[in-house]
């Protein structure tokens, strides 16, 4: 109840702000009708039967009568340009067109029903038999061959036809056939389209002449095959691809509605100087933020509703609904979409609040939001691509699921179970985003921190420190993601793809630079202690032995996890099995063993430990007794990086890599050193890469692992691995550092 009272004040403030009202009410009431009118005008103009015909100019070699006759010919082989009735889902069209002469008058008169609907349907339907009512008319005077290009470039006609008469070489007896050259203007859509029509006429002309010739022979024209077309009626709802724009537009407008209130109620508090008063009150941040969330959500939902109503009314009034929406504008569709938009609004409001809570001013919040808006467009663009449909796997991807589901709702093809998964997963993300926002809102660094510019980061500190500031560590991590993806992709430009050894060496260099060289350079620049940052401490010999044992056995458990994860991923339709298998086969057959070991075992072991278990943990862990969050975050990031393989996403690697990462983290946090983890990582990777080489040895001792066929490992082998892993873990625990040698207590620094 208190939260509702708090939200009442937030809502009151938001709705009294003129800027909110403009976005909420004025924009939808203006934008949609305006858009509808413009598109309607364009469609009618475009397909107006009374629009001027395309002018076709001839060079005079063909008599005028013959030229006129050619332009009025039906399609080649007697098929006709037949008009089609309005392309709505109600009509079940089944037509057979064969040798049915028709004139273009029939085409014009066949546009029944809503002229606009037919026009827009014609515009958007990619079926080649659709109406394209371009009339052709011969230019009254012929133009000499040599002047035809100039004539057309001057815009005096739209298409030119230049005929070359057949010539026979008396000496060789070879006949150079006659040729009809069709000339049009590049970049001029009307000229191009008229040229297509002229080509059809020319083909029909050629066909007719050929038939005449054949009729004078013993064979007759009947030997020339005809072409007929048959279109079957389609029971599935038909709607225009343009309908995919609608959910994207609704999503964008909902986002727009939520942005301003979110900024105003979070960063705006700091800027106005009201945040300190709020924090001084005996109210939890979670309650305050929930009140703000309710207010932002309310405005977002109102925006969504008003946009949806305005859009549907516009579609209905202009007749577009029957073309763009499968079943037209119905109440069922309206409520389905409305529920979807409410859930989306809640998700986006939470995400907005979690981002704007970091900001200390309006301008800073807007700067934070620009990347978010750009990222949010990507799923929307995905929804416009043909062949991308909502699957179970995509139904759990935030934003992508909403846009694809919206498109399928409009097309009338949405499945109920996918609808439910989309809504549930989006609600989960909403709650997570709110948790983040509640942690950040009113935090000391936002409340009291100064808005230091980039120059503050560029200035080298004067004193030494023991840890990487969070802003610098996280900043490098954020930069690392696009660098890693882009530079990995550029490998194939530097070294040919078929040179796998070269690719591996380059990959090793990249790993070294991104995960070792740069972090070390950053550490040196900010005068942080490399020993502390990278945990280059001494360790107990028990830890080393334990790491050795774990290195020898953990790969089996990771492999088994990989096998187990394939089933669920396949069910979610997110398995990219062929990629890993193909890569594994190429590795063993095309690359020398030493290169494999160095680039895929040694180098990653050293560099990844330096970064993930050294640099990153040091950035996140600010107190020695707080180990769980650094462990989980660093392991998650470690596993996420390993999902990208050769520009593809191989999600099945995530669980296995996550498991390995947890163990490596455990060793690092327990021992306070990365060296045992390096040993374990190198051995684990090395063994996985050496299975083919070790196979004869394993066979000799009666162990047929059969890893290539991707079957589970023998149970006894797994049990033995588990036992040895347990022993290794026990040794690591025994060798753990005592409390006084752990990292010193220090508070969060930015």
């Amino acid at each position: 109840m208190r939260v509702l009272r708090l939200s009442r004040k937030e809502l009151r403030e938001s709705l009294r702000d003129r800027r909110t009202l403009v976005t909420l009410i004025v924009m939808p009431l203006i934008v949609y009708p305006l858009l509808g009118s413009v598109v309607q005008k364009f469609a009618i103009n475009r397909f107006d039967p009374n629009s001027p015909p395309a002018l076709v100019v001839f060079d005079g070699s063909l008599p005028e009568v013959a030229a006129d006759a050619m332009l009025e010919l039906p399609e080649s082989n007697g098929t006709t340009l037949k008009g089609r009735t309005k392309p709505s889902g109600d009509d079940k069209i089944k037509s057979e067109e064969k040798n049915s002469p028709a004139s273009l008058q029939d085409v014009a008169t066949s546009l029944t029903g809503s002229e606009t609907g037919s026009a827009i349907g014609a515009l958007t339907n990619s079926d080649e038999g659709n109406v394209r009512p371009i009339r052709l008319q011969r230019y009254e005077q012929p133009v000499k061959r040599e002047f035809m290009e100039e004539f057309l470039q001057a815009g005096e006609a739209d298409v030119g036809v230049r005929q070359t008469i057949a010539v026979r070489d008396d000496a060789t007896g070879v006949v150079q056939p006659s040729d009809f050259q069709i000339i049009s203007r590049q970049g001029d859509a009307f000229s191009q389209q008229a040229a297509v029509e002229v080509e059809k006429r020319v083909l029909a002309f050629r066909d007719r002449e050929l038939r005449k010739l054949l009729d004078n022979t013993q064979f007759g024209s009947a030997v020339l095959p005809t072409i007929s077309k048959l279109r079957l009626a389609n029971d599935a709802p038909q709607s225009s691809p343009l309908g995919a724009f609608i959910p994207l537009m609704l999503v964008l407008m909902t986002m727009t509605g939520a942005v301003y209130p979110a900024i105003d109620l979070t960063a705006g508090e700091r800027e106005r100087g009201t945040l300190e008063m709020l924090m001084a009150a005996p109210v939890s941040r979670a309650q305050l933020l929930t009140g703000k969330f309710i207010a932002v959500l309310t405005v977002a939902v109102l925006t969504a509703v008003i946009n949806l109503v305005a859009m549907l009314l516009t579609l209905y009034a202009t007749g577009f609904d029957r073309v763009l929406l499968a079943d037209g504008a119905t109440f069922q569709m309206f409520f389905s979409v409305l529920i979807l938009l409410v859930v989306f609004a809640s998700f986006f409001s939470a995400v907005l609040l979690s981002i704007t809570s970091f900001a200390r001013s309006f301008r800073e919040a807007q700067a934070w939001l620009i990347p978010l808006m750009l990222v949010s467009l990507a799923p929307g663009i995905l929804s416009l691509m043909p062949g991308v449909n909502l699957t179970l796997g995509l139904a759990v991807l935030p934003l992508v699921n909403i846009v694809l589901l919206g498109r399928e709702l409009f097309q009338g093809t949405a499945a109920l179970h996918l609808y439910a998964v989309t809504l549930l997963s989006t609600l989960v993300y909403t709650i997570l985003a709110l948790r983040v926002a509640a942690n950040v809102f009113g935090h000391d660094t936002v409340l009291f921190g100064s808005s230091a510019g980039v120059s503050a980061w560029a200035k080298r500190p004067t004193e030494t420190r023991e840890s990487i500031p969070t802003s610098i560590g996280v900043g490098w991590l954020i930069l690392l993601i696009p660098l890693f993806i882009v530079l990995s992709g550029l490998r194939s430009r530097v070294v040919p793809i078929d040179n796998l050894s070269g690719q591996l060496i380059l990959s090793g260099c990249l790993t070294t630079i991104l995960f070792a060289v740069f972090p070390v350079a950053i550490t040196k620049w900010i005068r942080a202690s490399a020993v502390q940052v990278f945990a280059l401490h001494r360790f107990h010999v028990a830890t080393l032995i334990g790491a050795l044992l774990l290195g020898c056995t953990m790969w089996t458990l990771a492999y088994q996890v990989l096998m187990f994860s394939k089933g669920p991923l396949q069910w979610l339709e997110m398995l990219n099995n062929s990629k890993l298998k193909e890569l594994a086969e190429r590795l063993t057959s095309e690359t020398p063993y030493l290169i494999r070991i160095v680039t895929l075992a040694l180098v990653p072991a050293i560099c990844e430990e330096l970064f993930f278990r050294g640099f990153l943990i040091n950035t996140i862990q600010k107190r020695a007794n707080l180990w769980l969050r650094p462990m989980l975050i660093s392991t998650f990031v470690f596993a996420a990086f390993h999902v990208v393989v050769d520009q593809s996403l191989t999600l099945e690697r995530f669980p296995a890599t996550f498991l390995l990462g947890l163990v490596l983290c455990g060793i690092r946090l327990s021992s306070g050193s990365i060296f045992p983890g390096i040993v374990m990582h190198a051995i684990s990777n090395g063994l996985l890469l050496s299975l083919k080489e070790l196979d004869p040895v394993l066979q000799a001792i009666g162990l047929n692992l059969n890893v290539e066929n991707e079957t589970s490992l023998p149970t006894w082998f797994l049990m033995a691995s588990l036992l040895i892993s347990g022993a290794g873990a026990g040794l690591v625990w025994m060798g753990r550092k005592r409390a006084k040698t752990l990292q010193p207590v220090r508070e969060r620094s930015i």
Partner: protein
Amino acid sequence: MPNLIEAVNLHKTFVTPVGTVHAVNGLSLTVAGGEVFGLLGANGAGKTTTLRMILGLMKPTSGKAIVAGIDVAEHPEEVKRSVALVSASAGLYQWLSPRELMHYFADLYDVSTDDAIRRVDELTKLFDLQSFVDRPCAGLSTGQQQRVNLARSLMHDPPVVLMDEPTRGLDIVGSKRIFDFTAQLKQLGKAVIFCTHRLEEAQRLCDRFGLMFRGRLQLQGSLAELRKSSGLESITDMFLDLMERNDATTEEAMQPQLVTTAPKHEGRSV
């Protein structure tokens, strides 16, 4: 009267890109009910940081604060119920009226509806807000906004009031109103810490004084005690003498104390 505010050896250190800053360095003070304690010093001396630690808005690097017998670190929410913060830098919600604002803060402090209505009427009369109490705050003058700020901070009638440069930006009339009001608070038995760098005004208003310089409370006591110990007449003279004795210019005095080596315990950064 018993002490309502106790600060015991408070320290606050910040880690900045250029170095570590000791904003507050071993500050201890007490304020009894019915007493106005003037926490004085130049800009950047550490006054606001001290108030934030007493209120519980900022965690001290070390030391503790006790308000109305409650340890701030252990029960921050309870402490907040007992304290009002009046800050010149506090803004108002532009689209709300003073009445709506006061009711909102009554809600934040769990004041019942009936009590809130009564308090709004009382404070409206006290601060002479009648002519604009139902107008949006956006259209109010600086003086009017400051009065509204005072009114909303006292909705829950707390025993402790922390005032951080409340006369900043006010004219003589406005400042006098603040001083008169502060004297009223004193008569009501409230413990008040009054932060200002207008030393002459503080001298007239406060019962006891604490002069801060570079994060430390350099002088503390009643006016008589300070006169006796320093041999100087006015607070202004005492402060200037303090700065001269520390061999610093006024500009340097505005900079927090900078250390060049990393301490064992690093504080929150700005």
